[in-house]
């Protein structure tokens, strides 16, 4: 079974530039998450989708971050304009979703963003 795919793996941009990350979840997984992991910390949830609807985006800095999940499959996360403090690894995860037994999340390799 293919895992969660993310691209690009690495990105370096200047502050105030824009950047977009792409995620393809495991086939059949209804729930998709974007997490931000700053060096030395645990992942922090940015946004959670159930199919193509947003379940939780309470910690997404909406003035600069946006995300979409068209057709309930692939997702993109965009930052515009980027700030230095956005330097982090952006992790996409997916899970089957729905029901108590289907909550285990599987993570992609992440995109390491450096803002200079």
């Amino acid at each position: 079974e293919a895992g969660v795919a993310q691209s690009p793996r690495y990105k370096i941009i200047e502050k105030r530039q824009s950047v977009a990350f792409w995620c393809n979840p495991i086939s059949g997984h209804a729930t998709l998450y974007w997490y931000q992991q700053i060096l030395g910390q645990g992942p922090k949830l940015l946004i959670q989708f159930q199919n193509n609807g947003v379940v939780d985006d309470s910690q997404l800095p909406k003035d600069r971050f946006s995300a979409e999940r068209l057709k309930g499959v692939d997702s993109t996360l965009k930052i515009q304009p980027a700030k230095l403090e956005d330097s982090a690894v952006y992790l996409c995860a997916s899970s089957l979703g729905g029901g108590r037994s289907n909550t285990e999340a599987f993570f992609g390799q992440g995109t390491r963003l450096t803002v200079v």
Partner: protein
Amino acid sequence: ELKVEQNPLFLSMQEGKNYTIYCNYSTTSDRLYWYRQDPGKSLESLFVLLSNGAVKQEGRLMASLDTKARLSTLHITAAVHDLSATYFCAVDSRWSAPSNYGGSQGNLIFGKGTKLSVKP
């Protein structure tokens, strides 16, 4: 607001020794996960603990969950160098009340991680 605390944050062990990593969380939840992360890599799922008293073992690692104490432990037996990594616990914030059962997917709140270094 659900908070998850791990300790210790850094752990240096000798090969062959035993040790325990602790994960405390602040509000009711009966669903807890342990992940492993190697440097520059993503998170690998180790254990899913779904109920009070749950205990799972894989090789030299054993995880347990006490929902009444809001505590999970990850016990390492006879450590080997290959276990060197950062270990995270994560608590599902959405299964803390009967009204959530069967509802939308839970939201994982992570601890800061425990960086384990096993030395020969």
